[in-house]
């Protein structure tokens, strides 16, 4: 994941806190920055390389259907890419996921604003939210197929319904914890209800909303894979399923790895969006 920053903070903080007491002790060691760079960049690389080596040697004499070697997975990747299968699956997955995710954001934030702002509305919808949160999304698959058939709409719907709740819940929470001071500011400068929500309540809830979006993103990816595996076989989920059924384990693992890369990719995109559009968050949360 793209959390080099947070690793650095976690590693750096205790070190800088203890150094003022004794510079002599700290001197022979790496400076906090070097050490955290070492820990956050080199150690993971070494760890992955060691893992791949172990895997290669361990799986050398095993049945490749049970456990293919990394080299076999590598050639599966080459095969999938040269035939364009992986790219196509990746693109379909990206579509399924993004449509569903954006619908979840749109619906979830409106739902969140209403539940966060109006007590009565909260009472009205909270049983349904609890119900859907508790329902395993996979159990909804047959129903979704009845409604939308074997189509992209079905997959998008499943992604959206799986991802919408954390957005709604976090938005509502962010709006509910709005400080007395900001309420007073809204009053003093005569903001209308809609101005207040758009200019004060929603932006002040953005850190909460982003936390919700992050959770929702993970759920959107899960929803996407579930949808692609259980409805018509397509996208990355379908690819994994198809090669699993065909016992082409190296291809299957290539698909799983791509799904993981996919999740990291969209999560990194989200960090970029946050820093681009909400530059003030870094200043206030620090």
């Amino acid at each position, binding site marked *: 994941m793209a959390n080099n920053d947070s690793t650095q903070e976690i590693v750096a903080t205790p070190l800088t806190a203890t150094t003022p007491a004794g510079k002599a002790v700290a001197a022979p060691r790496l400076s906090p920055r070097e050490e955290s760079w070492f820990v956050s960049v080199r150690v993971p690389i070494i760890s992955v390389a060691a893992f791949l080596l172990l895997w290669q040697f361990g799986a050398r004499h095993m049945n490749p259907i049970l456990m293919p070697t990394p080299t076999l997975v590598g050639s599966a990747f080459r095969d999938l890419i040269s035939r364009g299968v992986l790219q196509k699956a990746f693109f379909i997955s990206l579509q399924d996921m993004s449509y569903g995710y954006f619908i979840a954001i749109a619906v979830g934030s409106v739902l969140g604003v209403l539940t966060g702002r109006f007590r009565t509305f909260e009472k009205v919808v909270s049983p349904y939210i609890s119900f859907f949160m508790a329902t395993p999304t996979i159990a909804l698959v047959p129903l979704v197929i009845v409604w939308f058939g074997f189509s992209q709409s079905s997959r998008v719907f499943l992604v959206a319904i799986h991802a919408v709740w954390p957005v709604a819940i976090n938005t509502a929470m962010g709006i509910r914890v709005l400080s007395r*001071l*900001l309420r*007073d*500011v809204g*009053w*003093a*400068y*005569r*903001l*209308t209800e809609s*101005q207040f929500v758009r*200019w*004060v309540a929603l*932006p*002040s809830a*953005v850190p909460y909303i982003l936390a919700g979006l992050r959770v929702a993103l993970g759920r959107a990816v899960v929803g996407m894979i579930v949808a692609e595996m259980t409805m018509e076989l397509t996208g990355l989920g379908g690819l994994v399923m198809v090669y699993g059924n065909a016992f082409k384990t190296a291809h299957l693992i290539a698909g799983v790895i791509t799904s993981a890369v996919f999740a990291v990719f969209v999560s990194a995109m989200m960090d970029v969006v946050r820093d681009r559009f*909400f*530059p*003030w968050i870094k*200043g*206030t949360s620090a």
Partner: protein
Amino acid sequence: MEALIEVKGVSKAYANYATGRELVVLRDIDLQVRPNEFVCLLGPSGCGKTTLLKILDAMITPDRGEVLLGGRPLIERLADIGFVFQDVGLLAWRTVLGNVALGLEARGMPRRQRETVALEYIKLVGLEGFAHYYPHQLSGGMQQRVGLARALAISPKVLLMDEPFGAVDAMTRQTLQVELARIWEQSRATVVFVTHDVDEAIFLADRIVVMGRAQATRSVNVALPRPRWNRDAQSDPEYVALRVNLIRMLNTAHAAAAATVAHAAAAATVAHAAAAATVAQTAKGGE
């Protein structure tokens, strides 16, 4: 002159859920503020200054009594009151420009126009060149200037200020006081300014209203001539007398009776005082 703000028998109590008892914060407060007057509410912390100020902007509804603004009850949210908060309350997601323009934008003033006006006030409070900064990029004193500009930008008839300089360092506070006095002398808005700092009150006010715990108040006129920032206040007997008097009143703030102590004589002696230290500078000695 007719009062612009009239507070009549205002009372307010808060329920304390921990003790189950009611805390009376304001009891039968009467207060009149004339147009263009600069009134300081002076009192120890916790005596209900913020509560009273918020009642003046209908942010809090009193349990009893009423507030008249220009002779009319303060039921509707009136558009021409500017409020400067103790904790500033800037919107972290808006730049200085966006914050200062908030009140104008709420009234639907077109973008270009409101930005022109906002820039004017940003300049007035000495923040030229910082229009596109975010609040977290500014010091505490600068943030408080933004808070002031935001309040001034709507050209309020009444400016309510809640210990606006309470959280900034002594040097910055002094600068801000001088600039507020300068700005006020230009705009002549009616100001109600809350403070617990005696010297700040003397430096800024036409009239100081001393508040005791939940009590009605005594009112003291400050007849020192303006501008006040280039006089040697320490050597000014009237200033010292006023200061001693105010501190004594604060200490016996439980006295319920309201009386007006006029200091009309002050003007004469103060007029030829030398210009070494500002009034505000002396201020730091006592607290």
